[in-house]
């Protein structure tokens, strides 16, 4: 049986192939990416007023029409592109910025660490949504403002996690050896430390993307995005605005929310599948349980007795 790579991006492919959770997650994500890329060309014009407002799903309009009389399916499909794009971009940016601060703090220690730690701890404790609102309110509405606000409120968590990892790695022998050998800080960081953090960085990016998509939708729901743009969040904003709920027009908000959840779920599955494959403890237990099952023994708390007839 092939053994997964201990660290590194290659481990991700292994995880996607071997673990069912990761496979499902990757497949689901792939579908959404496809929709984001190709969908707008196939779904028709979302801005066009194609029918009577608030019509339930029908053969003509698979997801019905919204409060303005636009096709809901087209709105959802077109919205996918912007929502995913901002989500991925912000997810990456948040990790990069967090890595910059976190790795610096963890590697250099001392006063640098003290100052940077206070910085990200403060940002961690300040509530994100109200902060995002006050910042976004002063800037022109649009994707850039949204991205900026999301990065400002989201980077601190990554700084904390990556700092902890850097601290742990710094204690390791191979780093000490490099320091003694007189390698420059830059080399140590780029050759010894960062490569060993790659799996964590990828996991954090995935987690941050989930955050970015959710937070983005939340802010747009409040009306802080560009309400004339078509994204998942603005779909929900208009649905609330047009009192969709109280008129029973569930189709105006249900599909969008479902999409957000499915993408978030897919990304989370990817992450947890990866963890299952690389966490050596979980791996060991799996083989053990399989062995017991094959011999018809229950998995007891005390060490089980499973004679193999040698």
């Amino acid at each position: 049986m092939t053994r997964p790579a201990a660290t590194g991006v290659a481990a991700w492919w292994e995880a996607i192939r071997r673990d069912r959770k990761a496979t499902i997650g990757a497949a689901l994500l792939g579908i959404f990416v496809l929709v984001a890329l190709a969908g707008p060309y196939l779904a028709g014009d979302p801005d066009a007023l194609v029918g009577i407002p608030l019509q339930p799903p029908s053969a003509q309009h698979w997801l019905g029409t919204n409060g303005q009389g636009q096709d809901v399916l087209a709105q959802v499909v077109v919205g996918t592109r912007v929502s995913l794009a901002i989500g991925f971009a912000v997810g990456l940016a948040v990790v990069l910025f967090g890595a910059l601060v976190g790795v610096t703090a963890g590697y250099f220690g001392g006063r640098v660490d003290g100052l940077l730690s206070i910085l990200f701890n403060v940002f961690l404790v300040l509530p994100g949504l109200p902060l995002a609102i006050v910042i976004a309110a002063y800037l022109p509405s649009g994707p850039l403002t949204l991205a900026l606000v999301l990065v400002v409120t989201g980077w601190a968590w990554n700084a904390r996690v990556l700092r902890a990892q850097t601290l742990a790695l710094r204690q390791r022998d191979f780093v000490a050896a490099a320091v003694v050998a007189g390698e420059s800080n830059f080399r140590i960081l780029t050759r010894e430390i960062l490569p060993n953090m790659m799996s964590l960085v990828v996991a954090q990016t995935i987690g941050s993307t989930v955050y970015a998509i959710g937070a983005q939708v939340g802010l747009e729901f409040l009306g802080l995005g560009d309400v004339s743009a078509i994204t998942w969040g603005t779909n929900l904003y208009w649905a609330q605005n047009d009192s969709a709920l109280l008129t029973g027009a569930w189709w105006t908000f249900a599909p969008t929310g479902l999409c957000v959840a499915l993408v978030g779920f897919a990304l989370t599955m990817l992450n947890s599948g990866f963890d299952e494959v690389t966490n050596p403890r979980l791996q060991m237990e799996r083989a053990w349980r399989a062995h017991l099952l094959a011999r018809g023994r229950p998995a007891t708390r005390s060490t089980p007795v499973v004679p193999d007839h040698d």
Partner: protein
Amino acid sequence: MTEPLLAVRDLCVDYVTDRGPVRAVDRVSLDLAPGEILGVGGESGSGKSTLAQALLRILPPPAVISGGSARFEGRDLLALSETELRGLRWQRMSMVFQSAMDALNPVMPVGEQIVDTLLAHGAGPAEAARARAGELLEMVGIPADRVAAYAHQLSGGMRQRVGIALALALEPSLVILDEPTTALDVIVEREILEHIRGLQRRLGFAVLFITHDLARMLQFADRVAIFYAAQLVEIGPAATLRDAARHPYTQGLLRAFPSLRSAAGERASIPGAPPSLAHPPAGCRFHPRCPRAVDLCRQRSPELLTLAPGHAAACHLAG
């Protein structure tokens, strides 16, 4: 001949990994008489701790007992149910862990952890148990008022003593000491071992003393068993092994430990490293490092040969 307190026959313990089972204890047989101190020595990973924890059936997954038998006080340890095991553990057989300091619950006062044990085995009521906890602490040399202390407030040596007090709380007939003093400095180590010996003489329990410190073990134990690569390679009275060990590994270990009386330069460590238990060498497992290995050693695994009453070694060249 009285029945031994503990009779282990051909015991096998495997770790089930996704690359197949790894045998951590390979057909080990030994006896322990009541009130006897048996030292178990060998390098790390040789199977000593695994054997001890297997007796109490507390090895975590992915461990599995895959063969042999173990009888304790006439009962088959491998056939006991969860409830029976709970009754046996601590009451009849207890253990002091290597990391007894880390084996204490950090959020509970140490006294309460002793009381827990007492109450769990019916040594109530609570008042009596609390008093007894104080007595036990005194017995291991800790002032009784430390009953309310938390683990982090005690020194390493004191925490280890709490571990011993815990092990003796229900007056078991067998106490397993798994590297009880490895993490302590030599002076504290000696104090504690002396203390245990005193208690042992007074209360009469048998001791399974696991350590990699051969010199210490030879001072302390009545009989000694040496493990190598999951197998028992030599067993006999401490004096015999100290002066007339027959297995090359035991001899190598003895040479590796300096004694104040030996001349300088007589020390020599055993070349090489212990084999991987997943892929042990063919034949005798020690042969790659053995200075006296012959062709037979490479081909056939030696059986445990009785060389004298109570002394056996697993070596083709010992008989």
